[in-house]
């Protein structure tokens, strides 16, 4: 690890004063410290925000929940309100990492975690995300975990979060505070930039801006929520593909569907045409297959990720069977029902 200066911020305005050129904010540290040890990241200063009271806690603001940026993954997954009203979020968080990591990893840090692309981690390989302009070793490399949507000739890295995929399907917003103290809100998907020719610029956060909270809108009555994740090990592994589905029935037809996909893109992936293809359809493999075809048609695969097209297609169909009540949970149980 390279040497750095350490400072602790007690308040948000205090933190704003300490965040400058070459500084990184640290909270849970589970991703940042790992990357600092291998010198993929070498900030000159760490600003410790982990004690800032304003960033802690989960509160009900009448329109949903406000989740402080420092709320840990464990706190979120176990919160009684989230388990009953937004079970998708609990399920997605519990599908990721280990108990030890979830006890430290924070909500803001989870959103801002870096890709696990092996070429990003290997400082002997070219990576435009780590060293802009250096090239992308993944293009001609080996890459089972690479993205298939939203990539560019400069970067094939996938965003690794499960939590962010659930938040996207739940139409959550990120609350951001500028250095000057102004607050703005963005849908989770709009937090992220696609790589284009600057894969190193991953979010729309301006210098000095920090995530202060995530806001979950009030749950719709009688939605079924499913998080379906496929990975190489039964536990403690990143998604090859994952599907977050929030489905509301209208009689025996699908009234609305909000889908998001993980392990397949530089950000939680969404496709409004897929959601739209399901509205008004009778639940069944014909409608689900059509929606999956719309989604997969947009995929651009590296030779090693061709398998993700049929895998994503089948995972989506299975998730929709569960979300419309056609099948009981295949994965153990990722479905839950919101009380009306």
């Amino acid at each position, binding site marked *: *690890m390279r*040497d*750095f*200066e*350490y400072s*602790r911020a007690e308040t948000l305005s205090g933190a704003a004063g300490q965040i400058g050129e070459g500084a990184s904010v*640290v909270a849970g*540290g*589970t991703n940042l*410290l*790992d990357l600092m*040890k291998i010198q993929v990241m070498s900030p000159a200063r*760490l600003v*410790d925000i*982990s004690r800032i009271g304003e960033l802690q806690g989960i509160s009900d603001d009448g329109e949903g929940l406000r989740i402080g940026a420092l709320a840990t993954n*464990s706190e979120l*997954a*176990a919160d009684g309100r989230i*388990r*009953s009203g937004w*079970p998708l979020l*609990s*399920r997605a968080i*519990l*599908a990721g*990492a*280990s*108990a*030890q*990591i979830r*006890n*430290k990893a924070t909500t803001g840090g989870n959103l801002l975690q870096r890709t696990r692309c092996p070429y990003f981690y290997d400082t002997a390989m070219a990576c435009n995300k780590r060293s802009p302009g250096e090239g992308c070793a993944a293009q001609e490399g080996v890459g089972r975990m690479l993205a298939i949507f939203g990539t560019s000739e400069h970067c094939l890295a996938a965003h690794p979060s499960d939590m962010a995929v659930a938040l996207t399907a739940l139409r959550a917003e990120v609350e951001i505070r500028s250095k000057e103290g102004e607050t703005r809100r963005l849908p989770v998907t709009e937090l992220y930039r696609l790589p284009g020719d600057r894969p190193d610029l991953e979010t729309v956060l301006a210098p000095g801006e920090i995530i202060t909270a995530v806001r979950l809108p009030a749950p719709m009555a009688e939605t079924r929520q499913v998080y379906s994740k496929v990975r190489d090990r*039964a*536990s*403690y592994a990143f998604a090859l593909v994952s599907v977050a589905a929030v489905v509301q029935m209208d009689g025996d037809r699908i009234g609305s569907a909000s889908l998001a996909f993980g392990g397949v893109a530089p950000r939680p992936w969404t496709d409004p045409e897929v959601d739209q293809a399901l509205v008004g359809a009778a639940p069944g493999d014909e409608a689900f297959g059509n929606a999956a075809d719309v989604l997969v048609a947009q995929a651009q695969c590296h030779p090693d990720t061709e398998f993700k097209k049929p895998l994503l297609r089948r995972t989506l169909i299975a998730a929709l069977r569960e979300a419309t009540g056609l099948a009981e949970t295949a994965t*153990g*149980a990722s479905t*839950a029902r919101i009380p009306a």
Partner: protein
Amino acid sequence: MPIAQAHATFKQESHMRTRFTVNGEAREVEHDTRTTLLDALRDQLGLTGTKKGCDHGQCGACTVLLNGKRVNSCLCLAAMHEGDEVTTIEGLGSPEALNALQKAFVAKDGYQCGFCTPGQIVSATAMLEELRAGDPSFASASLEGEMPLDDAEIAERMSGNLCRCSAYPLIREAIAMAAEVKS
């Protein structure tokens, strides 16, 4: 009591002093900003029961309780834990007075080489508390109600602790045995 007194010399380019409680005792360490909690425990306080396995949060050998919650001490900076309460394997029992989990690991032969065992036991200590609190896991059929302590739940809840000898079946049996003793 520490089983060894280590006094490794940390680089001290960015020198700091941090106080926290370890196994109920107030301790103070002088260290570099880069020093992890794991290295402070092992190299400065001589508490070598906590093991340095991967040093990247993947193996769980360095698991300690931080304010009662299990964490990877290799992914904690000592500097960030001023005033915190840390419990290591040395704080859970002693060779003369093993606790229920330690006895169960011996009874069930829940190890081979033993390197991962302190992390397994510290992790299982917290895991049983999480179960008692009703926290769900990925393996839980329902997010509500009482959580069962079956083999699938133990396996899922312990997935942050690797055992390269693959003593997993006996580790799970030991944890199940200790849970029964406690309840």
